[in-house]
């Protein structure tokens, strides 16, 4: 496989190395950590020659084709440039961090995060697929979050990191949207295709959306105005992190993005307006704010913002030369800013402070470091013979060569010069305030030169500043050319990298900037005074406050909607139901269908009247609970009669037996509940509820009527036709239950069993309210077990069992079955509990209801599994007729075994519920087993 694929993954592999090598020594750890990035850098450089020749390397393997994601890498000039920056500066930072971090800091973790970030950055710059690019883009956000919050115990670190993550994360999401639109527009997520489709994109109606979304991603990452505020607060990170992320890598990712998509998106008015104006604003604002920072890193951070603005401005101009200048400044800024951060870190490390009001006159204590810092600062200020000068000259030149603002185009060079002056001013401040300007004030430590190797990275970078500044063509020429060519996706314009271009306008602008900057610095006290008039606003506080605000508002809203009122929740469900059904039902023109209706008879009217009156009485008296229970029983009774009347004897039987068990259950529960319901609904609520209840009643009634009066073509004829021949029973309903749809029944008894288990759980830990008197304050009677009831119940038990056996056995052919039989048995046993009490039963009835449930479900399931032995599907039934002498013909059916399972489950479940509930008040109450 192409080595290109492995390039970014080599450092990823390296993420593990520091975690395991940190136990040896910090130096060893740093050494091992550096190995793979160094190797990667070596590999990258090995491509350099060909790339300088204009070649481009690409490699791809499919990954998730459905979303257009493939593992695709490209190494062209731009990628090469960034890879070298990422890996090169990364290696220096590894070395630097070895000395910067204290013994207490977990260096292994630090390196791991750093390498992870390096991997992500490499992924971004090497990506040849839009989705993959975004993939790594987000990884940079995450890994930078981890790095910024490395000292997470500090509030600023935590909050700063979170803010950085939020802002860049939001931008990342916008970027994703932008890239998806871009991909859709082009029809491919391949970067090369996109880059080659510039015209298509720019003429597409999606173009503005794409530009805005992609730029949102870029601007947030590169701290462009108005998203710049996160960067200074990210300075809570350890300085090596700043030196890496905020000079050469992370913040450059946004710049990289703009450069990467330059051929596809740039060179339109929209692009120019957004990008260059944003860049300009950022450039000036960053420089201005940098001037007022007392914190060394704050100054550098804002200067970074400013320089990023400068690059953005260049990229926005849309000319090829501006793009070249931008690429060049990317290189130069990375070099001097990294060295400056490192110098600041050394100062902080050795003096214990970064406050320029305390740091004075360090020249005396650390002259060597001071020299390095001063060179780098000078480069930042754009002093000749240093690299910063060259790209700034190009920048000034380009500001003069544009006419985008029409007659107002002169504003740009003027403002650029102003920005240059501010840069000179803050660079001067960095040099003068720190290294000169009297004696240090209250420093925690006496400053001295850092360890030898801590300086090495700075030395290298500052050396590069000088070398590039003096021999630009030799050192950076090819790199710049190939990077610029990749940026432009085509030939590069003519430009000269020489130091001296003669006396020209840009040189004048530089001169003005230097002089102006010095003047500004000189009069800084006035400016500080001027600035002091404005209220200080810490972006972090603002950010936190706004997050807090949103959180609070969200909380208020949630407390309002999710107010914990079940009545409201149910109302919401029902309200939705009313809206949905009514919107449909209005289209029903005729309620009655063509099916002839059954004539009405007196019996039906009576029953209906009884039903309605009792139902209404239940509602009206629902606050008198026992009365409501009695009227509810009447409703249940009438419902069973209705089933009986309309040819459903099985249903009638089931309804009757369930009814009794339910009533007993409700009575049992009523003992532990208040006897009465207070009147607490506001009349308005009552009217509201009455309205929705009547509406729903009306809807359901209407639908019910509409259905019943229409003919139906159903599959049921199959059941009546096959019940006897296929299922071996004449009671079709029962055959459906135990055979045709036995699976439903299996589920149903499982439900019953589970309900019983759940109820047992509920009861097992229940605290009790045991009223000593009824609702009217009358004490309970002392007759626990009325004698007549006790005696009669004993006699009824065998009879009831016989009846349930009868109901069970006939079920297959006549109304009945295991379920009803089970309920009858349960009621009979409950009757014994009522009549005799728990203790009496306990000594006489040794039934483990839990085992009944388990075996019931088990038997039903096994009866279904039996058919497997004969190669039939689960629950396939068999039945046969047998002849025994003297008895005659009789039938045996597997369905009966199934029904036995049903019977056992029903008895077990009902008894587990009722008996345990009853036992609550006794010494036999269920308690939690110790081991559970």
């Amino acid at each position, binding site marked *: 496989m192409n080595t290109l694929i492995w390039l970014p993954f080599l450092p990823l592999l390296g993420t593990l190395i520091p975690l395991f090598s940190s136990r040896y020594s910090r130096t060893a750890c740093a050494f091992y950590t550096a190995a793979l990035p160094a190797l990667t850098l070596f590999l990258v450089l090995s491509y350099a020659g060909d790339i300088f020749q204009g070649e481009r390397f690409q490699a791809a393997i499919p990954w998730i084709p459905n979303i257009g994601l493939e593992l695709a890498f490209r190494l062209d000039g731009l990628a090469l440039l960034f890879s070298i920056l990422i890996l090169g500066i990364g290696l220096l930072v590894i070395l630097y961090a070895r000395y910067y971090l204290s013994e207490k800091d977990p260096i292994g973790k630090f390196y791991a995060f750093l390498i992870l970030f390096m991997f992500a950055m490499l992924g971004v710059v090497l990506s040849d697929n839009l989705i993959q690019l975004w993939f790594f883009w987000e990884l940079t956000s995450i890994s930078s979050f981890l790095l910024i919050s490395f000292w997470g115990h500090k509030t600023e670190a935590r909050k700063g990191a979170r803010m950085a993550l939020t802002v860049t994360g939001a931008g990342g999401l916008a970027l994703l949207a932008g890239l998806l639109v871009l991909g859709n527009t082009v029809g491919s997520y391949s970067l090369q295709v996109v880059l080659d489709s510039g015209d298509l994109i720019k003429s597409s109606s999606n173009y503005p959306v794409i530009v805005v979304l992609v730029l949102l991603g870029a601007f947030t990452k590169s701290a462009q105005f108005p998203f710049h505020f996160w960067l200074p607060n990210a300075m809570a990170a350890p300085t090596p992190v700043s030196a890496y992320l905020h000079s050469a890598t992370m913040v450059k990712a946004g710049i990289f993005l703009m450069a990467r998509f330059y051929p596809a998106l740039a060179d339109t008015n929209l692009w120019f307006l957004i990008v260059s104006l944003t860049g300009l604003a950022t450039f000036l604002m960053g420089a201005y704010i940098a001037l007022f920072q007392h914190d060394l890193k704050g100054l550098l951070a804002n200067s970074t913002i400013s320089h990023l603005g400068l690059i953005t401005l260049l990229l926005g101009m849309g000319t090829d030369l501006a793009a070249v200048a931008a690429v060049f400044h990317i290189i130069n800024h990375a070099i001097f800013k990294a060295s400056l951060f490192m110098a600041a870190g050394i100062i902080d490390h050795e003096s214990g402070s970064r406050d320029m009001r305390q740091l004075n006159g360090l020249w005396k204590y650390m002259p060597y470091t001071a020299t390095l810092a001063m060179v780098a600062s000078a480069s930042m200020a754009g002093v000749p013979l240093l690299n910063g000068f060259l790209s700034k000259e190009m920048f000034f030149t380009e500001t003069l060569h544009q006419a985008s603002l029409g007659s107002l185009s002169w504003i740009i060079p003027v403002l650029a010069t102003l920005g240059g002056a501010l840069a000179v001013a803050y660079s001067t401040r960095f040099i003068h305030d720190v290294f000169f300007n009297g004696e240090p004030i209250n420093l925690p430590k006496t400053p001295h030169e850092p360890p030898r190797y801590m300086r090495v990275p700075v030395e290298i970078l500052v050396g590069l500043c000088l070398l590039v500044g003096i021999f630009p063509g030799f050192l950076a020429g090819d790199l710049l050319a190939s990077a610029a060519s990749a940026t432009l996706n085509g030939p590069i314009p003519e430009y000269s990298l020489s130091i001296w271009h003669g006396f020209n306008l840009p040189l004048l602008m530089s001169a003005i900037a230097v002089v102006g900057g010095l003047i500004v610095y000189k009069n800084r006290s006035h400016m500080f005074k001027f600035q002091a008039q404005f209220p200080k606003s810490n972006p972090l506080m603002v950010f936190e406050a706004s997050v807090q605000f949103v959180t609070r508002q969200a909380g208020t809203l949630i407390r309002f909607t999710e107010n914990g009122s079940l009545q409201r929740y149910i109302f919401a469900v029902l309200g939705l139901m009313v809206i949905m059904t009514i919107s449909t039902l209005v289209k029903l023109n005729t309620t009655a269908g063509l099916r002839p209706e059954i004539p009405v008879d007196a019996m039906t009217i009576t029953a209906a009247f009884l039903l309605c009156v009792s139902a209404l009485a239940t509602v009206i008296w629902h606050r008198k609970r026992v009365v409501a229970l009695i009227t509810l*029983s*009447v409703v249940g009774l009438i419902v069973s009669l209705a089933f009986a009347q309309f040819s459903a004897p099985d249903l009638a039987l089931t309804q009757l037996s369930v009814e*009794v068990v339910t009533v*007993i259950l409700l009575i049992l529960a009523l*003992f532990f509940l208040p006897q009465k319901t207070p009147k607490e609904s506001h009349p308005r609520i009552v009217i509201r509820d009455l309205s929705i209840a009547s509406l729903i009643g009306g809807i359901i009634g209407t639908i019910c009527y509409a259905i019943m009066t229409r003919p139906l073509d159903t599959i049921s004829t199959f059941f009546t036709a096959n019940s006897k021949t296929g299922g071996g029973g004449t009671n079709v309903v029962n055959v459906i239950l135990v055979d045709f749809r036995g699976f439903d029944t299996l589920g149903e008894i499982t439900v019953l069993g589970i309900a019983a288990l759940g109820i047992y759980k509920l009861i097992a830990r229940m605290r009790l309210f045991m009223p000593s008197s009824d609702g009217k304050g009358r004490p309970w009677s002392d007759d626990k077990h009325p004698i007549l009831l006790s005696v009669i119940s004993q006699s009824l038990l065998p009879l009831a069992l016989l009846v349930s056996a009868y109901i069970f056995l006939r079920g297959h052919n006549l109304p009945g079955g295991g379920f009803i039989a089970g309920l009858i048995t349960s*009621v009979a046993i409950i009757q014994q509990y009522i009549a005799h009490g728990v203790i009496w039963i306990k000594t006489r009835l040794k039934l483990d209801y839990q085992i009944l449930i388990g075996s019931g479900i088990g038997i039903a399931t096994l009866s279904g599994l039996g058919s497997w032995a004969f190669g039939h599907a689960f629950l396939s039934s068999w039945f046969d007729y047998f002849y025994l002498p003297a008895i005659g013909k009789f039938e045996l059916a597997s369905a009966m075994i199934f029904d036995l399972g049903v019977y056992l489950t029903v008895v077990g479940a009902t008894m587990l519920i009722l008996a345990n509930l*009853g036992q609550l*008040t006794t010494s036999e109450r269920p308690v939690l087993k110790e081991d559970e």
Partner: protein
Amino acid sequence: MLDITITFVAAIICIALFLNLWRLLQGPTLSDRILALDTMYINAIALILLYGISSSSALYFEAALLIAMLGFVSTAALCKYLLRGDIIE
């Protein structure tokens, strides 16, 4: 003749049910209501049997039997509740 008788008898039982309902709603005591419910069970049995006769079907017998068996249990449980609160003790 049987048809007319059945209609007539059904009407009578229906009236009886109305009377039970009246007592059930009227009360005045809970005992009255339970008594009314208990009587209703009996009238319901009659109604079911009558329906069985009128439709010449023996399928309704079990329903009647169950009402007889289970109605008693529910009456007993309600009474026990009024007496003791706790019906299983």
